[in-house]
């Protein structure tokens, strides 16, 4: 594909006006769907992603139940209208792979062993995709799990870094993802300095890769702060509601 776009200009500014180490605006909301046991919503750039959690609950079919812990299931799915050309609602191979790596990214944070013979179902729906949906998906799913009251060792947060026009940049947007030289999505548990998702495509030297990891982890830490704020805001809201009710 002919590279049509200048991704980073001579002043180090990216197509959307960001600096190379600058995240896109992130908006997080917790507890927005009434049926789910837990839910959350993220906007990161133009990404718009919902996550919902059901469980712990009965496992169907039963023979999949695990004797010593909960079964974690995860579906990452894109709405047909979330991308440029309409996507068939049937799961693509890409969605199958991402469902797997996202599940594996979240699993180490959850105390699954406290709920043997149950299942925890996690659904991530990408309503609009703008590059970095798997990372935003991990970030928002983590909040949905917390909102469902699932006990966790730490929140999992994710952010990508990559290479665009020779620069190592953080949190790639759609065009950087498609036309850039490399993309390194990372999921991270800050309290444990533990990487739970790591992928890469593109071309990087080891040195560039080190830089990318470092930038991605910086991004993770910033978003982690936002995650905690969002949870706090939710509990604040509940608290006020309860207290409001008491005062009445």
């Amino acid at each position, binding site marked *: 594909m002919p590279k049509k776009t200048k991704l980073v200009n001579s002043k180090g500014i990216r197509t959307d006006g960001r600096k190379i180490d600058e995240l896109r605006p992130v908006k997080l909301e917790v507890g927005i*769907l*009434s049926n789910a*046991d837990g839910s959350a919503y993220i906007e990161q750039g133009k990404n718009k992603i*919902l996550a919902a959690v*059901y469980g712990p609950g009965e496992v169907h079919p039963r023979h999949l139940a695990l004797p010593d812990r909960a079964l974690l299931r995860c579906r990452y799915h894109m*709405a047909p209208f*979330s*991308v440029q050309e309409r996507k068939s*609602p049937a799961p693509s191979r890409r969605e199958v792979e991402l469902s797997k790596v996202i599940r594996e990214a979240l699993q180490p944070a959850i105390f699954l062993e406290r709920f043997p013979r149950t299942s925890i179902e996690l659904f991530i729906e990408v*309503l609009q995709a703008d590059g970095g949906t798997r990372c935003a998906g991990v970030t928002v799913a983590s909040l949905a799990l917390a909102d469902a009251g699932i006990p966790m060792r730490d929140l999992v947060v994710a952010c990508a870094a990559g290479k665009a026009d020779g620069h190592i940049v953080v949190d790639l947007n759609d065009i950087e993802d498609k036309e850039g030289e490399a993309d390194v999505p990372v999921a991270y548990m800050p309290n444990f300095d533990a990487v739970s998702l790591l992928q890469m495509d593109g071309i990087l030297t080891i040195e560039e890769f080190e830089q990318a990891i470092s930038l991605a982890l910086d991004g993770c830490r910033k978003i982690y702060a936002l995650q905690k704020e969002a949870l706090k805001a939710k509990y604040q809201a509940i608290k006020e509601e309860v207290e409001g009710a008491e005062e009445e």
Partner: protein
Amino acid sequence: MTSITVSRIRQQQIALLIADGKRLDGRGLMDYRPIQIETGIIEKAEGSARVRLGKTEVMAGVKIGIGEPFSDRPDEGVLTTNAEFVPLASPEFEAGPPGEESVELARVVDRGIRESEAIDLKKLCIVPGKKVFIVFIDIYVLNHDGNLIDASALAALAALMNTKIFKYEVKDDEVEIKPGFTKLPIKNYPIAVTFADINGKLVVDPWLDEEEVMDARLTMTFDKDGRICAIQKGEAGTLSPKQVIEAANIAKEKTEELRKLLVKD
């Protein structure tokens, strides 16, 4: 954990209240829950809308593609409507190919749009017999608290009214996309009103608990000129012919009321 199974006691309560002309959530029998409609929420879709009907939440996205016309309608665009019961919307929804309920939902919404000729499909022909625009309506149920049909029909119409098509030129039967957009040509505004029959009494806009106890469901879709363009009875109960006519008269009124949310005079 949320349970959506309504207990027997609650079921009796709902039915008894309705016999009395009241509803558990305080509404009158012919009142809708609060309705919120937002449009243009998915910038990447040619059209989009989100409808909140009480706690029921449905999105509709419209994508425009280019494809072949049906051989018996060579000079018309193609409309295709799909509904997904996204599993995050309800503990009873499962991932996988559409079940009979989501097929029915999509077909009922489609019928209203198609029969009222809401979209001017003739204007979506690019090269007769060869290339036409395809309008994909994707209905996405995000939270299920009853009456998905009315919410979906509203969301679909709102998304269509919000839809823009890129400008183009045809050269040697090939489509060249040009800068700018035009509006999707909309000719009619079908609105669906759904009744639940509970112990012989009709209510509109049943919420989930009412759906669990209803005997029959009846959806009537009216076009902008007050004519019926689609009907669907659902569930295993029955209705008397008299009830059906009564419902038609109420639905006509109700659709006019609801249409005002989308179409300003």
